[in-house]
Structure formats: structure tokens, C-alpha cells
């Protein structure tokens, strides 16, 4: 049971009262092969292009007349059946870049292909909500040792940690305790020294806060016993403990399947899907699922045609999964990609990824999406 005083959404730290909605972003790093996730199993072109690596009938879970999920996504299929999953096909951006690094930069900063924006879309959301002393790094959290561009704003950056206990330990050495901990920020001082002390003070406060929250709820549900499963479990526990964090960010790497794709891809999908399913069950049984939306993306999809190494090379448009307990529109959001109409062997994008972000920001997080995305994008209506 969560003690009532720790449950309140705007508790002891004086954070602006958010609408209580939580966003979890899962990044499948390396370029996930979306075509082998949501399989166009009635399309001859799929089998023609993928003689070696197509997903056979007995490994498919049918979800519509022409679409089936890879059976390693069985947890996702259950969410789909329960009306807790929306699949958006052919998401991308104009002039797609096939470099991992650059394309991930574009997704994280929400920039155009030829723009170099040095803040992230979640970071700019932090900026929009950061007023004087009410800025706390733990408002957006990444479960990792280092912080991604996505969570870096101009005024405020999110915080990254793997383990609340380790975080607390590194943020409370005797020296830090005696120098930075109770530092009173001076808003008039614009020097870098002041900025460093202020960041240190915020960090120690957020580390204490996260550590205290991490003690409250320990899940009884079985999560996959791997690195990703542990990270997802930590996110669920923090949400259920009532932490004031509104965005959680986590990455599952390894999707760059140029050779012998099938085995690696299967393991990764299973780890992803089982972890996500466990989290959703956990949130449901604690009555929090209706407050949470989980967005899954990858920096690009893979080429339609397999390569000679039983793998796939870098592609472009891809599917995005939205999971949650309060979706307005679940199921397949739009038709499967058109395999007859390709551009240099790659899928053409139909939906700009920033239209997905826009829906999440304005429809779910109640933010000014145009300001945060630096431009106006039509929001999708899954929320």
C-alpha cells in the first residue's frame, strides 16, 4: 500500500500540479524491423522479398484481415485484443536519413532532416514547465547511466539513473553533502558557477526524492529477468509509488540486424513484449493503467528486401506502438504499408512522427505541442 502523503501528485517539492498523466517512451535502438513485427501475411510481396527471413504462419498471431503479429509479441497481441494498443503504420519524416546516429538525433530532437536542434522534445517540455524554483530533474527520468538528447532542455534537463540506490550513493558523498546539498540558489546570478551549484542542488534533491519513492512499492509481478525487464519494472514501481515524474525514457538496444536476423530479433521482441505486458498488468492491478501511455519507436525500419546475409539493412518508415489504459482509438490506426510503392526499396512514410508526438503532447500531456515541436503538426486522434 502506498502511504497517502506520498501519493499526491504535487507533493512536498512544490511542483506545478501536472494533469497526473504519465508518458513512458521505449526506444528500440538500432532500427527495428517493423515488417517482421506487424506482418502483412496476405501480401505475396512480403514473402517474395523475404524468402529467408519471413515469419511463417505458425509463428503469427492474426489481428486483422491482413495483419498478424510476430508470435514473440504475444503480450502485445493481448494488449491489442483488450483495446489497450494502437498500431500506427508508416511513420517517418521527409528525406529520411539512414544513419543510426543522425536519424536517432532527428527523432529525439524532433527536428527536420536538415536541421540541427540541440535540445530534445521532452527537454523542451520540461522547459515549458520550468518556472523559477519549480524545476526538478526527476520530472523526466531515463533509466540508464547517461542522459539522451531527448530529455535535454535549455533550462532544465531530465535525470538518468539505473538504480536509485546507486544514484543516492553517488549524489551524497561527504563532499557533496557539505558543499552542494543545501545550496540556496541565487536567481540573479547568471554565472556558470551558479549554474553548476544549482544543478548539483537539484540533483541531490531529486536523488533523495527518487530514492525515497523507490522504497515504497515492490512489484510482486514476474518481469523478464534481464536488463530491460529490470528497467521496465523500476519504471512501473516508481509510477505506482506515486512519483511526480511525468516522463520515463528507456532504450532497448540491439536491433541492427544486418546478419542472421531471426534469432536475435525474436529474443529482443520477446524481451520487449513480455516486459511491456508485465508493466501493463502491474499498472492495471494497482489501478494506474488509465494514467499511463507508452510510446514505442525506433529510429528507422529496415529495407523491405532481405540482404544476402539473412538480415536486413537500414530502411526508413516504420510502425509505432502506443499502449495505454485510456486510448481513444485502439487497434490498427491506418492501413499497412504499401509494398508496391517503394522509394529506393524502402517504405514511404505516411505519417510524420511529429504528428504522433503532437498527439501525445497536446492530447495526453496537455502541453502546447506547437511550441514544443517548434512547428505545427496535425495531431493524430488516438488519444
Amino acid at each position, binding site marked *: 500500500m502506498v502511504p497517502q502523503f506520498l501519493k499526491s501528485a504535487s507533493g512536498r517539492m512544490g511542483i506545478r500540479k501536472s494533469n497526473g498523466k504519465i508518458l513512458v517512451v521505449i526506444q528500440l535502438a*538500432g532500427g527495428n524491423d517493423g515488417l517482421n513485427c506487424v506482418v502483412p501475411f496476405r501480401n505475396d510481396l512480403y514473402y517474395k522479398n523475404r524468402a529467408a527471413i519471413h515469419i511463417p504462419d505458425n509463428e503469427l498471431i492474426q489481428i486483422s484481415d491482413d495483419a498478424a503479429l510476430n508470435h514473440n509479441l504475444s503480450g502485445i497481441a493481448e494488449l491489442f485484443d483488450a483495446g489497450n494498443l494502437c498500431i500506427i503504420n508508416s511513420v517517418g519524416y521527409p528525406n529520411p536519413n539512414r544513419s*543510426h546516429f543522425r536519424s536517432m*538525433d532527428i527523432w529525439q530532437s524532433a527536428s527536420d532532416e*536538415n536541421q540541427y536542434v540541440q535540445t530534445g522534445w521532452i527537454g523542451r517540455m520540461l522547459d515549458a514547465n520550468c518556472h523559477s524554483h519549480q524545476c526538478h530533474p526527476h520530472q523526466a527520468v531515463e533509466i540508464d547511466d*547517461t542522459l539522451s538528447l531527448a530529455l535535454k532542455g535549455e533550462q532544465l534537463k531530465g535525470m538518468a539513473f539505473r538504480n536509485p540506490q546507486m544514484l543516492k550513493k553517488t549524489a551524497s558523498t561527504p563532499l*557533496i553533502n557539505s*558543499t552542494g546539498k543545501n545550496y540556496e540558489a541565487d536567481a540573479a546570478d547568471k554565472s556558470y558557477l551558479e549554474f553548476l551549484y544549482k544543478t548539483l542542488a537539484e*540533483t541531490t534533491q531529486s536523488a533523495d526524492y527518487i530514492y525515497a519513492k523507490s522504497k515504497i512499492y515492490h512489484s510482486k509481478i514476474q518481469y523478464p529477468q534481464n536488463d530491460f525487464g529490470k528497467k521496465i519494472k523500476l519504471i512501473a514501481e516508481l509510477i505506482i509509488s506515486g512519483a511526480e515524474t511525468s516522463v520515463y525514457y528507456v532504450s532497448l538496444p540491439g536491433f541492427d540486424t544486418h546478419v542472421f536476423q531471426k534469432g*536475435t530479433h525474436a529474443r*529482443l521482441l520477446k524481451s520487449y513484449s513480455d516486459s511491456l505486458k508485465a508493466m501493463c498488468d502491474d499498472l492495471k492491478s494497482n489501478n494506474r493503467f488509465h494514467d499511463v501511455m507508452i510510446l514505442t519507436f525506433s529510429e528507422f525500419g529496415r529495407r523491405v528486401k532481405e540482404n544476402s546475409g539473412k538480415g536486413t539493412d537500414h530502411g526508413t518508415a516504420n510502425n509505432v506502438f502506443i499502449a495505454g489504459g485510456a486510448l481513444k482509438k485502439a487497434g490498427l490506426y491506418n492501413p499497412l504499408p504499401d509494398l508496391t510503392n517503394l522509394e529506393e526499396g524502402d517504405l514511404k512514410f505516411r505519417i510524420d512522427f511529429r504528428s504522433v508526438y503532437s498527439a501525445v503532447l497536446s492530447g495526453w500531456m496537455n502541453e502546447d505541442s506547437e511550441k514544443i515541436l517548434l512547428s505545427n503538426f496535425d495531431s493524430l486522434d488516438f488519444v
Partner: protein
Amino acid sequence: MNHHQKIQHLYLRAGFGATPQEVQSMAALSLDEIIGKLFEGSSVPADLNFMKYPLSKKQERKGASAFKILKMILQSRREMEDLNIVWLNRMAAAKAPLREKMTFFWHNHFATSVPFGFLMQVQNNTLRNHALGKFSELLHAVAKDPAMIIYLNNQQNKKDAPNENFAREVMELFTLGEGNYSEKDIKEAARAFTGWTVNRKGQFQFNVSEHDEGEKEFLGIKGKFSGEDILNFILGQKQTALFITSKIYGEFVNGKIHQDRVNNLADKFFKSGYDISLLIKNIFSAEWFYDDENAGNKISSPVELIVRCKRMIDLQFDDDVALLNLQKALGQVLFFPPNVAGWKGGSAWIDSSSLLLRLNLAQSLLHDGKIKYRPKPEFEDKPVDESDDDGYRLISDWALLTSYFINVPDDSLFDSVAACLIQCSRDKIKRAEIEKISNADSKENRIIKLAANLMSLPEFQLI
């Protein structure tokens, strides 16, 4: 600032910091003499020669297969990482600190990263050879640099299908700055750069058959311009001198631009035909360069921080992977800038995790020397389930500092060590607290503890 601090300031900006012994050895010289020494020590460029030319004669003739190229790329990534360590160690050896610092500056200005180690070495040598020469020559050399051409897609820039990437960035990021040219200028410049490509030997090649010979209109002038003409027109704009001077002032003096000074410096820079040495000499010799407001006001970049620690306490790691991963975790890896705009710098270096890692670096040396940091895996890496490893082991050698401070009386020890390590205001430092936790049984240990604690403060991050 006293004379010692002025020397420290000069060496932190013009190089990667000076040891107290080095500062002492220069104490009797005037600043002008010291600046003269800095330039003298960096007068002859020395190439990085870590990698040999990778293609065999046969490969050169026939070209390599796609598979071989993939293999070369993968191998190259490792070579680039090795090259990274070679350069970092050269920075720390400080034989020619000014040239290393300027090469580092140009590496961020002409930010490039392609997965061909040899070509990155070639580019680095181009940058270091021109680092203190004429910017005009540097620009022409970089425009024909194979790594740059590949990075900004000029290989795809052909008569029938111009690619504007290089033409755009050369004006936006390398010379004029945004707002000082039109979209039309980009289109026309791109046409002039058509046919500038890289051959199978990894060398620049002008491919006449892909070059657009037609008339172009650039910055209001019409003619059958070549790529070289475009660069010369850009260099003919005083705005280019202003843009470069402003960036150098921001990096070497103060992020808050003093417009009058910059205008004045840019004037001389332009008139000298873009003499980089003259520009930075004018900066380092100016009285205002040593004003308090211009010292200790810059957050050191991860590379600057690491190299300074290597210089001061010979910071080492049990293996080079740790050194590379430290750069990754702190957000700056040599030869891997995030994009063509380079590292953003300033407050962008700092977030909760990078700050805690910076503050715990020297601190860990007071305990078991172990520190944990796991950067994000590379996109190409195979998925591995990360185990709970114990982190990396740091090794340090404090002899330089202990031998220098051993005869300083106890009551002035704190001030002496702090003056050597802290370049900004010391008003926020809680001296009594630090002296308390730096207590030790011997003078040597007290010096080590004091130094390590001071190096773990926010103040130490500022140079």
C-alpha cells in the same frame, strides 16, 4: 589576477593547462615572452601517423567489394577509437599545446565523423597543418578533404542532381553564419561544387563530367563559377572574418561576446588575409584577456577536463576502453562529434549524471579508485545483457603536486593548492569543511586529499 594565475589562465585557454612546476618555471618571464614561447613551441606541425594507408595496390586499381568495404568500416571504427587515444595522449604530453588546442578547435568547427579511420587521420592532419596558418587556406583544404566530402554528401552532388548539403553548411556553419546568404545562394553554390568527389584511393578528385559548367549567380554576382571561386567570394565577405572571430572569442575569451573587441579583432584578421596566429596572438596579448571576468568562466569540455587531469595527476585507466567510455559518458568523444554543428558546449555539457560523474572522478581516487559509468551501447553492437560489473579502475600519480606543495607551511596550504587548481571565484567554497575532510596523518596525504577534494568541486569544472 597575479602573474601565476595569468600564466595558468593563458595555458588553460591556449592549451590544456600547465602544471605548477611549469608555471613556476615561467614565473620570471613577461607575458609577451611566454606567449612567444607558446607560438614557438607549436611552430612546426607534427602529423598523426598512427594509421597506414589501408588499400593494397590491387584494391586501389580495382576498387574494393562491398563486403570488404563493410569489413573496413567495422575495423575502422576500432581504429578511430585507437586514434582517439593517440590524440588524447598527445594533448596530455603537451609538446605543442597551442597547436593541439587549435586543432581541437577546428575539429569542432569543421565537425566531421565518417567511419573510415584513415580518412579521419588525414583530416586531422589537414586541420593541424593549417591550425595556426591562414583560415583561407584551411577552408580551401577542408572543402577538398575526403572525409568532409563524404560526410556532407558531396559525392552525390552531380550536375543533373545537385546535393546542397555541403554548400549549405559551408556558409551556415563554417564561414558566414545563418542569415548572411539566401536559399538561392545555396542552390547556386551547390552547382559550383558539383563533381567534387573522392576517388577509390580515398583522395579528392574533380570529376569534370559531373561538374555544372553553366553560369551561376552567387551573392549577386554572375559568372561560370567553380567551387574555388565560391570559397573565394565567401572569404571576400568581411562577415566571414567576423563570424570566425566571434566564435574564437567565445571559445577562448568569454561566451558573452564583447562586440567592439570582436569587430576590432575581425578587422585586423580580415586585413591580414585571415592570419589565425595573428588573431589569437592579438587576443592573448590583450590586457582584457586577463580581466577577472574572462577567467574561470568556461565549463571545460570533457576532453579538456580529462586532459587536464592527465596533466595534473597523470590520470590513467586500467584499460583504454575505460578512457573512451569516460568520454562517451561525459558527452564528448574525439572523432565522433554529434553532427556537423559540433558539440554545443557551455551548459549543454552538464546534466545530473554528467555532473555527478565529473565530481566523483577525482573523489573516487580517495577511495578504491573505482568508478562506474556505462555509456550507451553503439547502435551496431550486438545486444548483450549487461551484468552488474564493478566499474573501471582509475590510477593516479600525485607526485607532481605533493612534491610541489610539500614545503608550503600548513596554514597556507589550502590557499596554495586552491590557487593552483581553481581558476574562478573561491567565494562559494566551504574552506573549513574541506580542510576538515582533508585531514590526514602526513603532509603528503593531506596535499593529496586537499587536491582531490578541490578537484571534486563545481569550481574545478571551470577554466
